[in-house]
């Protein structure tokens, strides 16, 4: 007979985890500060890559939570807390954006007034691309994400105590509002942070492109955390490989989606062959950047596609762990490929520098610490959710 009571005993994550997090974050911050002192231009280009990566994890996770509510999914309920902990990155985005704004002059060509004065195209874009409006937009984006993060997780936490089914209904409504807000905000963030690094270039699909990578990164982070937590017994014992299969299936779907969107962007620009669009891709074919461009197809599409194709691979915790780490790297690589060829000193090809390695280290430490902090405070399983039992009984 199926049990009616959900048995779950909260356990704290091991202390060593926060230690690793602190060390990585300290190393990242220290070297990050040094890198800004050594080469502030290169450091700020790397910083925006890391910042976009953290948006991917945080806001992408929030999107996954909203998706669960609007489609009324059962299977993801037992692991929703893992997703919520990653979404806890969002409030910190408001602090992390400050170094970015302080170094805007190094990063964004359109902030240089003397170049805008000589450039008809930049003058035309000035009503949108100007410092004041940019800062307003960035904080508005973070404000929107924070608001929905606050509303969704507050209700979820409250439910742990009072087991009120009405809160789920409330969250469904909030999520339904959030999905279109997410669509617009993620597009705007892609345009502002990634596309405006080369202000002459434009692609109407860049928002969707960033979105596809965002969901991959968030799903990969959630998959990695879920497998690790499950292996060490922090999650509910009834979470099986069938739950992992759903995560693997979604990863596979979004790997395909990314390939589809990335190719759509490339093919339309290649076919129309307009110089004002093609120069951006030609830039990414200059010297050693060509290796990066081919590498992106292999790393971000071909390898994960082949690895995730078979059904057993989507269920195998060991393989999923590897693929999740791989895809997190792939998304970081994708963002790096988007931004770095625009770095003026590297227009002829990639030149290695230790600065490129610094910020991802700090970002990983930061994510571990946020996750650990939330895991200390909250249950790792949403024990008050009315759909939890159905979610735990999920089978293929």
């Amino acid at each position, binding site marked *: 007979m199926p049990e009616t009571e959900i048995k779950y005993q909260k356990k704290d994550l091991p202390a060593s985890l926060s230690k690793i997090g602190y060390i990585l974050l300290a190393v990242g911050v220290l070297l990050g500060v040094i890198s800004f002192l050594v080469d502030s231009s290169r450091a700020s280009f790397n910083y925006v890559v890391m910042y976009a990566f953290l948006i991917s994890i945080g806001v992408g996770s929030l999107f996954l939570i909203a998706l669960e509510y609007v489609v009324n999914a059962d299977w993801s309920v037992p692991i929703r807390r893992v997703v919520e902990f990653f979404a806890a990155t969002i409030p910190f985005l408001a602090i992390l954006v400050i170094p970015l704004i302080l170094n805007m002059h190094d990063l964004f060509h359109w902030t240089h007034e003397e170049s805008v004065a000589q450039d008809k195209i930049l003058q035309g874009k000035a009503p949108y691309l100007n410092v004041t409006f940019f800062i307003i937009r960035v904080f508005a984006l973070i404000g929107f994400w924070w608001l929905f993060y606050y509303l969704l997780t507050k209700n979820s936490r409250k439910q742990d105590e009072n087991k009120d089914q009405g809160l789920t209904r409330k969250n469904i409504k909030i999520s339904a509002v959030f999905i279109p807000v997410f669509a617009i905000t993620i597009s705007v963030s892609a345009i502002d942070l990634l596309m405006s690094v080369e202000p002459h270039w434009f692609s109407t699909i860049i928002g969707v492109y960033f979105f596809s990578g965002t969901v991959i990164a968030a799903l990969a982070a959630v998959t990695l955390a879920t497998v690790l937590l499950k292996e060490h017994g922090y999650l509910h014992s009834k979470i099986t490989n069938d739950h992992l299969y759903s995560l693997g299936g979604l990863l596979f779907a979004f790997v395909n989606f990314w390939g589809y969107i990335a190719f759509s962007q490339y093919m339309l620009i290649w076919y129309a062959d307009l110089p004002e669009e093609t120069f951006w891709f030609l830039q990414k074919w200059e010297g050693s950047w060509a290796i990066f461009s081919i590498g992106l197809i292999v790393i971000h599409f071909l390898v994960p596609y082949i690895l995730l194709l078979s059904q057993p691979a989507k269920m195998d915790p060991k393989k999923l762990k590897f693929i999740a780490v791989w895809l997190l790297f792939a998304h970081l690589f994708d963002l790096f490929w988007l931004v770095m060829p625009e770095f003026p000193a590297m227009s002829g090809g990639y030149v290695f520098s230790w600065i490129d390695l610094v910020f991802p280290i700090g970002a990983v430490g930061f994510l571990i610490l946020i996750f650990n902090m939330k895991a200390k405070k909250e249950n790792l399983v949403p024990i008050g959710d009315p759909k939890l039992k159905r979610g735990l009984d*999920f089978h*293929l």
Partner: protein
Amino acid sequence: MAKKVFAVGALFNSPDAIIAAAKKTNAEGFKKWDVNTPYPVHGMDSAMGMKPSMLGFVTMICGLSGTALALLLMWWTMSVEYPMVIGGKPFFSLPAFIPVTFEVTVILATVSTVVAMFAFFFGLPRNSHPLHDTDYMKKVSRDHFGIIIEAEDPKFDENSVLQFLKGLNPVSTEIIYESEKETYPIFEPRFILFLIGTAVVVSIGTYFTLNKLMYTVPFDWMDNQEKIIPQSVNTFFADSRGMQLPVEGTVARGFIPYPFKGETEPAELLENPYLPAKENLILGQKKFLTYCSPCHGNFGDGDSRLRGQFPNPPTIHSNRARDFSDGKIYHIITNGQNVMPSYDAQVTREERWAIINYIRALQRAKNAKVTDLAEIKSETEQNAGN
């Protein structure tokens, strides 16, 4: 006559009960048995102990064949057999081929999956199944969950199987018999009428879609675009022409104007700047066969292929034509002569000179003499001596 037993069935009330029953039946070691439910029950595959379906391999092999076929077809047609310049792209340009490759891969994979499913996994084509029109079937397609153990099972024995199924606490059990005579439901008048009706409705729908609907607003927007096409009236320019002439005093890139255009007897003629090298003659032959041979004939004899729709030109092997200078022929091609129009737009400058070199070769070949042999022989010997 005793009816032949097809299977013994048992009905259950809930998905949990059918999963438990399937697990027990599997543990009992039955081979030929099946479960029928009104909707897919999660966890049934593992409860029944089923191996992963082989259908995925059919899909994969056919999908990969689709990829290969599409790429082969496009490579052969677009870059080998009939190469065409499209948008200035290379003949084999992978980005342009990927959408088609993707579509062919998907369509071959899906269609083969459905066909393979019907043919190999559902046992089609077959007329009917003993389960049809039984009380059991009616119930499992509504609100019950059924399990059947077939008579073909090696462990089958009517009484012991009945006892076993009753031990699973079913709502009811039922013995299902083979139908006494072969029936052909697909030949029933009702079904045939249904087929005819469908065909008629689809045909009428298709006819009206293709002949009427596609010509009504807004479905004709793809056909009737708001743009200026050649020969149409243009309200944008003062002269109302759809096709504008080049701005006065300008020439298009790469175009060199011919100075004697429109003159019947030009005072001066151009010199042929090209030697009759092999590549030049091959180019000339290709262009001659394309543009000149329809009227002048493949060898310039004036044997037109136009079957009297157009007056035949005289032969190019007459003494008069052989005395034409290269510049004179160039003038005729560029300017036209009598009923022959100008080939200015079709044949480039280099191609015109190549055609002339080829015509010279034809004329030489047609008027060959025996003494030519000795001439060639001495020439070759001279060359060998040098």
